[in-house]
Structures are given as C-alpha cells and as structure tokens.
C-alpha cells in the first residue's frame, strides 16, 4: 500500500486532510461555544460565580479534585457537589455544610487524604460555593454515572 504512494501525494494528503479536519473541528467547537453561551444566558454567570472560579484557580483546587472528571484524582469529584449536599432543596443548609467542611480541614486522620486549611474569607467561600452551585446546573450528559445497583 505504502509502496504505491508517492511522497508528494503523501504530503498533499497530510496538508489537505489536516486542514479539512481542523475546519470541521473549528465549526463544531464554534457550535459548542454557541450552546455553552446560551446555557450561560439561562444560568447567568454572576460576579460572584466568576470570582469563585478565580478562587478555584488561585488555590489550584483541580490539583487534588476533579471537576467533571478533569484534574487530579487525589480527592473527590466536585462538579455536582452542590446537589450532593442537597443545595437544590435547601440552599442555606448546603452552604453551611460546605463551609463547615472547609473549616474542618485538615482532618489529620493518618490514613485519609489531607486537604489544607486555605483560610478563605467568608466572601471567598461564598464565591467558591456560588461557582460550584453554577457548575451543578451544567448538563454533563448524566455524568458522573449513578451506581449500577443490581
């Protein structure tokens, strides 16, 4: 097969094909961009949400946790943590629970992974929680999976 291919043909296929696939890719990413922006209209990104994302970035939370499965796998997934703590039913209680959680770190239990005490201000905590509340509204194609109970 490769014997019959000339070098020029191989080169042309490479450039042509790469450009072709990149254009398709860019178009699809464009469409995904559009849909993600629409989603942000339905669930506006408030200043607090944006500030919370900055806290997430500045404290490198992703270097232990995953957000939608991306990041380190040293600590639990947090994309839908807001729902896990019942934020959709009782937002105030969920917020308090999460704040209490932050305050309790590190646990210093010798066989459990340790989370540092970041000493976030109450405002920063609220922002971070607002961010995680916002991420919980994202349609992740039902990920993470519900346990397959048998």
């Amino acid at each position, binding site marked *: 097969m490769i014997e019959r291919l000339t*070098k020029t043909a191989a080169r042309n296929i490479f450039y042509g094909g790469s450009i072709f696939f990149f254009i*398709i890719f860019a178009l699809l990413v464009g469409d*995904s961009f559009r849909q993600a922006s629409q989603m942000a209209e339905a669930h506006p990104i408030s200043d607090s949400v944006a500030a919370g994302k900055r806290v997430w970035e500045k404290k490198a*939370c992703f270097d232990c946790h995953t957000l939608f499965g991306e990041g*380190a796998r040293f600590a*639990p997934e947090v994309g839908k943590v807001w729902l896990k703590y019942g934020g959709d039913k009782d937002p105030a209680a969920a917020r308090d629970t999460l704040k209490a959680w932050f305050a309790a770190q590190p646990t210093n239990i010798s*066989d459990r*992974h340790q989370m540092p005490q970041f000493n976030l201000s109450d405002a920063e905590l609220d922002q971070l929680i607002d961010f995680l509340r916002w991420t919980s509204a994202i349609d992740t194609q039902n990920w*993470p999976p519900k346990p397959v109970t048998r």
Partner: protein
Amino acid sequence: MLKYQSQAVAKPYFIGALLIFSLQLLFGLIGASVYVAPTIVPVDLLPFSVVRMIHTNALIVWLLLGFFGSTYYLLPEETERELFSPKLAIIQFWLFFVAAAICVVGYLFGFYDGRSYLEQPMIIKIGIVAVALIFLFNCSMTVLKGRRTVISGILLLGLWGVAVFFLFAFYVPANVVIDKMFWWWVVHLWVEGVWELVMAAILAFMLIKMTGVDREVIEKWLYVIIGTALFSGILGTGHHYYWIGTPGYWKWIGSIFSAVEPLPFFAMVIFAFGMVWKGRRDHPNKAALLWSLGCAICAFLGAGVLGFLHTLSGVNYYTHGTQVTAAHGHLAFYGAYAMVNLAMFSFAMPQLLGRAPYNQRLNIASFWTITGGVILMSLALTFAGILQTHLERVLGMEYMDVQQQLTLFYWIRLAGGAITMIGFLMYLVALLVPNLETAGQPAALKPAE
C-alpha cells in the same frame, strides 16, 4: 566530533532537561508516598496540590527543553549549515531555565494561578511566549537559509503549533464549559497533536543516522504517520468533550476518531522496526537504537492501547476521572515523549561530549529498569482504576472509602516509581560519567555518523 560547531548549544538543554526530569521524579515519589501515607508530609507545609503541580510542570518543561535541544542539535545537520544564532540559543536556554526555576520555588511558596499544567503566573506565561518566539525565529531563520528537508519542515511545523496553541493558555473565560473546551486546545492539541509531529521528526532523524536507510523512504513514512496522527487527533479532541457540558454529538465524534488514534503509533512501530531491519547497519550506539525502538513500542502501548482502552464514550462514562486515566497518562507520556528525548540524549551526548558512546551496557540496563518501573506503575494504576470504577461507579461506594481499599496498588505504584528513579540514576551515570575501562581508547569505536 560535531559536524557543526553550533550543535554544541544542545548540551545545556539536555543537561537542564535531565535536571528537571530528576525534579519531576522526586516530586512524583513524594506524591506517590502521600497516596500511601497521607500525613507523611505536613499538609500545611507542602500540600498534595503543589506536589502534583511541580511533578506535572517539571514534566512539560523538561520535555520542552529536550525538544528545543534536539531541534538545535539536528537542524544544522538537516539544513547543512550552522544555526542562525548560537548566542540567541544560549540566551533562550537561560531565560527558560531560570523562569522554570523561579516557577518551582514560587509554587512552593504559593505563587500559582491558572489551570492544570498551566499553573504558571501570568508573567511567566508571557516569558514562555517570548522564549518560544526567540526559539522559532532562530530555527526558522536557520531553515530558511539552509537546505530544506521534510524532517526539519515537519519539526518546525510541530514547534510552531506548540507555540500557537499555547496562546490559548491566556484565554480563561468565566464560563467553565468554554474554559475547559479551550484548555484542551493547549493540552490535547499538544500531546495528541503537534507533539506527535515533533516526536516523529526526531525519531526519523535518528533512524536515518543510525540505520542509513534512504531519506526518501523515511520521509514518505513520516507523512503517513503525522497524517494519521492529525486526522485522528484533531477530531479525537472530542473524547475530552464528553462530560464537560458540551453537546452530545461529541460522544460520536470523539469515539470514532479517537478509536483511530492508536494507528499513528502502530505505524511508528512498523516504521521503526522496518527501517532498522532494512538498514542492517551496525551502528555503534546500541543504546540509542534501543531507546528509539522502545519509544515506538511504549508509545503504542501507553498512548495507543491504554488510551483506546477507555476512549470510547460508553466505557469512558464509567472510567473517566479514575486512576485508569492516570495509568494511561504515565505510560503514554513516558513512551511517547520521555523516551524519544532519552533516545536523543543517548544518541547525541557522546558527540556533544566528544567521546565514543561508552557505558552502553549501563545505559541499556537503565532502559530496562526505567521501562520496567514505569510499566509496573501503569499496571498498578490500571488495576486500581478498574477496581475504583467498579466499587465507586457500579457499587456506589464513597470516593474516600474506595481510595483506602486501593492502598496495595498505590504501594506497588510507589515501588514502580522507586525503580524508575533508580533506573534514572543509572542513566545519568551512563551518560555523564566516563567509563574508566574504555575512556582511554575512544578511537577504537568508530564515531556515529
């Protein structure tokens, strides 16, 4: 023994790369220890996040240093002229190396900001772009003024791609869906895109030198490899767009195209072995040849096979974000990018140091030790990941409860890491310390081409 004087600038790059590689391994060992003994390092002194940050950033930096050095080493031979400016290359090295050092120290004291792999403070990111521009200017001028070959063309294309896609590191929108989408333009389009071009070009250069196979044959193969790499890799980005808030069609696109992603790596195996078989030349640098062949195989296993294992959306739905990803990441980075660099160092260092390729047995022993260590590590993580997936995603156990059940596998991973470190030290000795037995008679071995 260098054909072109300016090739010598590769030396600081290679030594710098090895230094930072040792940093990567050290912090890898620390991180692996924290997995088995979570309080062994006081969390307020050095949290796991910083350990991982240094581990991953050091990886990227030393691989890039290796790519830069390899490029400077091979460009004169490919273009048949000296580098445009060796001085600029040295300046670039120190800029990059010092920036990396500042970065690491900064991380230890809490100066970081960004996203995974891109935790560098803004000022450092701007510095990286400046360094990249110096590098690309220097290389492009060299190529423009000299002989143009397919290898140098593809190499430069790859390196320009590295720089261009890095620009998306500066785009951090508040919408985390869009943020993640473009974060992958850096990460995926690097390691499953343009880096493959760089890797294939460096491998092709070494194979030409070591096997003596006709350039025409190799160049055609090169186009086939990078063609399949980009055709599958660009839309293969889709396998990262399954669960981050992007539309459902990515499940189809990602699954179909990333199912093809093992192909370029398989082609590289056939290519490398085929050329060595065809060439039948007794090149004196057996160690470099072994690293080149091993690189093709381990890249296929790590990037190809382990990648394919969890790339289909139906499988990925369950394994995404588990240790399966870590297993794949370790073997893929090692096989594809660490090994191509270690091959190039083994190939070029003897000439850069002006002596015959000595200590080859030790180098070959280090190849088996490091490779064995990394494979052990990846196997342990694969098994941990399979268990984690089942316990967490099928049986519904809590994340942290599952982690505690994986301790045995994390111990094996740590052992794999320790073996890797030992192998690395052997490699360093083999490469940098003269062999007393043969040092006196380097002329006995004919120099590599």
